[in-house]
């Protein structure tokens, strides 16, 4: 094992979600977060899950990473059933979730230290590679609280990428950032994704964001959480979030999203 082989990209995963249901018991009764949801994701595909809050899109990510188990249905990655968490399925959260007791480098090293075949020196090289990728190598020894919101999310991205997952789940990772920082990160994420092909499941409630990043946009509706419609986005990359074509796609999808949500409210 060498750093080169460690940095080599494994083939991105193929994901299959079949007839998955998941409900939560709350004080007000049972919440059907996901109801008979099926989704198939190709190798290396960037899929954005869009919908209003409470439509179960984050729940789906928790099932895919193995943090939670479905009530019904099956999930599999490359034909292997997902029964628990594993480093081949990484996750990036809305809150950066970085560990305050470690510095930037320590955070990126966290997942690498769980790979026993790597030497200390090799882990360091791999961590530096990813910090370079997100443009924060100079901040290697900074404490987490010293970073800006955008920098924290960059570190979180580096940390999620470092164990070299084949599938990356991202749960509204940019929602808490200001518009300028977000636009930078859209560009960076596209570059990183093109350099290190991963299968990405990206949850957002921002339609423009979804169109800017995704190969495919999947619309969810809440109560119970279901998939309503899917849109393929064939715009050339890298995409600029402010382009007119992108806006056209976004308008179309927003209209569809509204009609599903309205249909629901009238049905009630």
């Amino acid at each position, binding site marked *: 094992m060498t750093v080169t082989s460690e940095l080599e990209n494994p083939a991105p995963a193929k994901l299959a979600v079949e007839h998955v249901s998941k409900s939560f018991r709350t004080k007000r009764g049972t919440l059907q977060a996901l109801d008979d949801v099926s989704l198939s994701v190709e190798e290396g595909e960037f899929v954005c899950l869009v919908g209003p809050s409470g439509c179960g899109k984050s729940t789906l990510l928790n099932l895919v990473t*193995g943090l939670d188990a479905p009530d019904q249905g099956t999930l599999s990655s490359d034909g292997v059933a997902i029964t628990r968490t594993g*480093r081949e*399925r*990484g996750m990036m*959260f809305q809150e950066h979730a970085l560990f*305050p007791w470690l510095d930037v480098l320590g955070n990126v090293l966290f997942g690498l230290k769980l790979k026993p075949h790597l030497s200390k020196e090799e882990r360091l090289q791999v961590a530096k590679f990813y910090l370079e990728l997100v443009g924060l190598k100079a901040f290697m020894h900074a404490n987490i609280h*010293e970073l800006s919101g955008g920098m924290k999310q960059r570190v979180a991205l580096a940390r999620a990428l470092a164990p070299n997952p084949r599938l990356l*789940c991202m749960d509204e990772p940019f929602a808490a950032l200001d518009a300028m920082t977000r636009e930078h990160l859209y560009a960076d994420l596209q570059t990183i994704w093109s350099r290190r092909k991963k299968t990405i499941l990206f949850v957002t409630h921002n339609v423009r964001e979804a169109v800017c990043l995704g190969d495919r946009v999947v619309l969810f509706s809440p109560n119970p959480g279901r998939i309503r419609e899917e849109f393929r986005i064939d715009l050339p990359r890298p995409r600029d979030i402010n382009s007119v074509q992108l806006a056209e796609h976004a308008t179309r999808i927003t209209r569809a999203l509204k009609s599903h949500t309205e249909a629901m409210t009238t049905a009630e």
Partner: protein
Amino acid sequence: MKRILHSTVFFIGLILLWQALVSAGLWSPVLLPPPGDVAHYLLKAVRDGSLFEASLVTMGRLLAGYLIGCLLGLPLGLACSRSQMLSDTVGVLALGLQTLPSVCWVPLALLWYGQSETAMLFVVVMGTLWSVLIAVDNGARSLPPIYVRAARTMGSQGIHTLVKVILPASLPFVVSGMKQGWAFAWRSLMAAEIYVTILTGYGLGHLLHFGRELNDMNQVIGVMLVIVVIGLLADKLLFAPWEQFLHRRWGTGR
């Protein structure tokens, strides 16, 4: 530098005030000796080695009991925070015993172990253990669950999560718990040493006790001063570096 100056001026002022009170002659010098006499006693006790020896005996007992208390309290506290069953049993027991002033363990320790080092050790362990356990339990329980979830998606599980995530994440609570445990251990040991004479070693508490028996106010006040200084040193040397590290990493405090 300015801070040291402030402290120095303050304490010199206190000693001058003390001297002034003695000179005013309001109390008999037997009850309130001048600072010079106390200093004289301290000098003598340092010279004949009795003070150093007593401090050594006391610190030995304290450190041994404290370490045992922490070594038991840390893992038990962590375990309680992860298991509802343990928390409902051991946790409740700890909470109850923590409210018991640790000097209350002394009679029991004497009956169980006699006038021995073991009795001393037992009292110190009881003083430390429960407060460390409860602080660690509370700390680990109040962690944002996202840390554990994030760690799991990177392949961390079981013991690894406990040692590499939950323990460091609750470090601020652990340190304040250990500090509280130290304070309780110190208090309980002093109480025990004043209360019982143990022939295997005379600690600072005994020196204080003998001072009273001999009606030697110089010794009483001198030993009290030593006890205060040791407490201060422990705080500055043992805990301040940790707290500084935590403030720097977490970005809390000044």
